[in-house]
């Protein structure tokens, strides 16, 4: 989003987006300095930092946009009915796993009754259709893909059990924060302005679905249109500043589920200096044109 729109700004694009198919590959690329920043799920970012990887969370990618999906023809209408079933998650270190733990706890169920398997996000819809799994907990557009394909049904959206839910966060290597704070600020500002632009109404979202689907995700734009507009608040892009209570909750759930063996404080893994400067920014002045972007 930010990359596409900033191409039309006088400053031009300031970074090169690189698509990966899974979070482990992003982690390795960050450690080896092949990439300097990236979007990963929040628990993975916290775990990386606690393991000594020199990165910090500087901003969020979005809020909400994750759902638990079951097969359309299954009789499952209640979370407890997933006992004994196979549920795919993107990573042990993901909010999509933590939301399951949260709901399991809420319904006073036993986590050992659920079989969670890690699966690359692009594979889950196919696995559900092929009956290799019974459900998945994943970010958009994969719940939308299952719904559009007619073989999946949303059991619940993350927002129903986790107010202010967040999933992907922007992490940046420490050396870049130290040596090139202006570049990091430009990136964060661009994401903030993209978020404001996206939350400015349906035409912007439809236009974004078109160019992101074709030029970045290599997905059918109709799929992203579904994910971004059905309903409009299915995924939200404001506010994206990292708030301590949100991260304390994630960290505590990580300790509870043994993803972390010791506590780590907010200021140790989040750098708020860039987010603090986004107050007062305005949406990109980019007018959505025809349904097909150039």
């Amino acid at each position, binding site marked *: 989003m930010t990359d596409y729109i900033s191409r039309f700004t006088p400053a031009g694009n300031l970074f090169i987006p690189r698509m990966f198919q899974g979070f482990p590959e992003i982690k390795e690329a960050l450690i080896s300095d092949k990439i300097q920043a990236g979007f990963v799920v929040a628990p993975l970012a916290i775990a990386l930092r606690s393991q000594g990887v020199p990165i910090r969370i500087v901003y969020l990618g979005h809020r909400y946009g994750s759902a638990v999906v079951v097969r359309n023809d299954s009789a499952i209408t209640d979370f407890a009915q997933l006992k004994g079933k196979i549920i795919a998650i993107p990573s042990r270190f993901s909010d999509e796993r933590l939301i399951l733990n949260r709901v399991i706890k809420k319904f006073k169920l036993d986590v050992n009754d659920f079989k969670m398997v890690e699966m690359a996000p692009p594979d889950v819809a196919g696995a559900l259709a092929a009956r290799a799994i019974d459900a998945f907990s*994943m970010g958009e557009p994969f719940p939308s893909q299952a719904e559009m394909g007619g073989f999946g049904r949303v059991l619940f959206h993350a927002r129903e059990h986790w107010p202010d839910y967040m999933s992907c966060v922007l992490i940046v290597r420490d050396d870049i924060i130290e040596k090139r704070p202006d570049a990091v600020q430009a990136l964060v500002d661009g994401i903030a302005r993209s978020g404001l632009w996206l939350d400015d109404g349906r035409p912007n979202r439809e236009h974004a679905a078109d160019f992101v689907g074709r030029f970045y995700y290599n997905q059918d734009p109709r799929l992203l249109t579904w994910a971004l507009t059905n309903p409009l608040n299915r995924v939200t892009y404001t506010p994206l500043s990292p708030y301590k209570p949100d991260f304390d909750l994630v960290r505590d759930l990580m300790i509870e589920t043994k993803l972390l063996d010791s506590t780590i404080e907010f200021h140790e893994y989040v750098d708020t200096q860039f987010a603090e400067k986004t107050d007062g920014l305005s949406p990109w002045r980019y007018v959505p044109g025809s349904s097909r972007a150039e």
Partner: protein
Amino acid sequence: MSDIKRLVLILFGWTSLVTALHLGLNVDWSVVLNDRMPEDKRKLYVAYIPVT
């Protein structure tokens, strides 16, 4: 033109064509050029996966 000369020319042409296609289709020139910039002028590589 001898057969040997003709064969060498064909091989040279074929190799040049495949090399040119490879450089055009498989090499990300934005990355190559960016990596040659001074460190403080380089664009940042930002990773994402095709999820919201």
